């Protein structure tokens, strides 16, 4: 029998999960369970929505109202759920490819509307499930099965993309500091409006192997050495920050949430 946390929030009969040894999607999924537990959310008021890809298997493991949808369209389904019942806490699991390639258009419009959805991007820089094709977040020059001579595309910063498109809360978490990840996910759930956490996940099986990054432990140690907090980054020079990834809350401000604005329209029209 697993820990009480896992028993309470996950579908034990579907575990162990299908993710490869050392894949950090499982660690982030646990962080979500801890965040939900800390917030004391009612099981029946939480909906997990996912798209397609390794990351999106999460919805099948979480013991809540869950829906595993089509590739890139988790945002559209989540928007529908939130519009139909704004009281629900809608949490969306997606990956770098699902969110920024196949679902890129849905992502930017969910951001633009500032609809109350919490998006957790399990960003492992590769399409793992289909065999290691390069994704929009594969760094320039790195390898994938479809980039055998190195990727010539510029990589997306999904948190920046979401912020530019209108998301009112964005953050970045990493696999080394999972306590920080849990806190950021908690803040993202608490935030009113569209929130997104770019979770730097590791894929030792494809991204790691293709780019000679070593095993899971080495990949986590790399993240430890190459991530800095927002606070620390403020006192660092551009040169010092060149090979660093900034983690923490990247953007957080208030703006009217979409379903509330929609309700105001309903109220106004009914009065007239």
């Amino acid at each position, binding site marked *: 029998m697993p*820990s*009480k*946390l896992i028993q309470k929030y996950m579908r034990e009969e579907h575990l*162990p999960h299908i993710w*490869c040894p*050392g894949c950090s999607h499982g660690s982030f999924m*646990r962080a979500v369970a801890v965040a939900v537990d800390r917030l004391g959310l009612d099981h029946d008021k939480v909906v997990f929505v996912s798209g397609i890809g390794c990351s999106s298997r999460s919805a099948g493991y979480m013991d809540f109202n869950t829906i595993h949808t089509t590739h890139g369209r988790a945002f559209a389904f989540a928007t529908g759920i939130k519009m139909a019942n704004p009281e629900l806490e809608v949490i969306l699991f997606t990956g770098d490819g699902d969110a920024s390639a196949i679902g890129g258009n849905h992502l930017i419009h969910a951001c633009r509307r500032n609809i109350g959805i919490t998006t957790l991007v399990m960003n492992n820089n590769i399409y793992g499930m289909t065999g290691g094709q390069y994704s929009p977040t594969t760094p320039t020059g790195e390898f994938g099965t479809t980039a055998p001579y190195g990727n010539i595309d510029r990589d997306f910063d999904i948190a920046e993309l979401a912020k530019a498109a209108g998301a009112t809360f964005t953050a970045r978490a990493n696999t080394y500091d999972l*306590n920080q990840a849990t806190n950021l996910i908690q803040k993202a759930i608490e935030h009113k409006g569209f929130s997104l956490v770019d979770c730097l996940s590791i894929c030792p099986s494809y991204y790691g192997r293709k780019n000679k990054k070593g095993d899971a*432990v080495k990949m986590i140690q790399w993240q430890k050495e190459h991530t800095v907090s927002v606070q620390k980054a403020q006192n660092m020079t551009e040169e010092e920050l060149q090979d660093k990834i900034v983690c923490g809350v990247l953007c957080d401000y208030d703006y009217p949430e979409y379903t509330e604005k929609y309700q105001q329209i309903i109220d106004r029209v009914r009065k007239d």
Partner: protein
Amino acid sequence: MKKELMIQAEWCKGCGICAAFCPKHVLEVKNEKVEAVRKEDCILCGQCELRCPDYAIWVEEVSE
């Protein structure tokens, strides 16, 4: 309440993350499964539980 280190070996995939980050070097992976080879050194800090991607190791409160 007493705390105890628990292992569910069937769920362990042998990635070695828990062993590498255990501050007291309590854990080792043998035949692709984690083992608490120096359990007496365990300080029940829960780093392994925090990091294990497969929920195969954790610290549990047990009645004495």
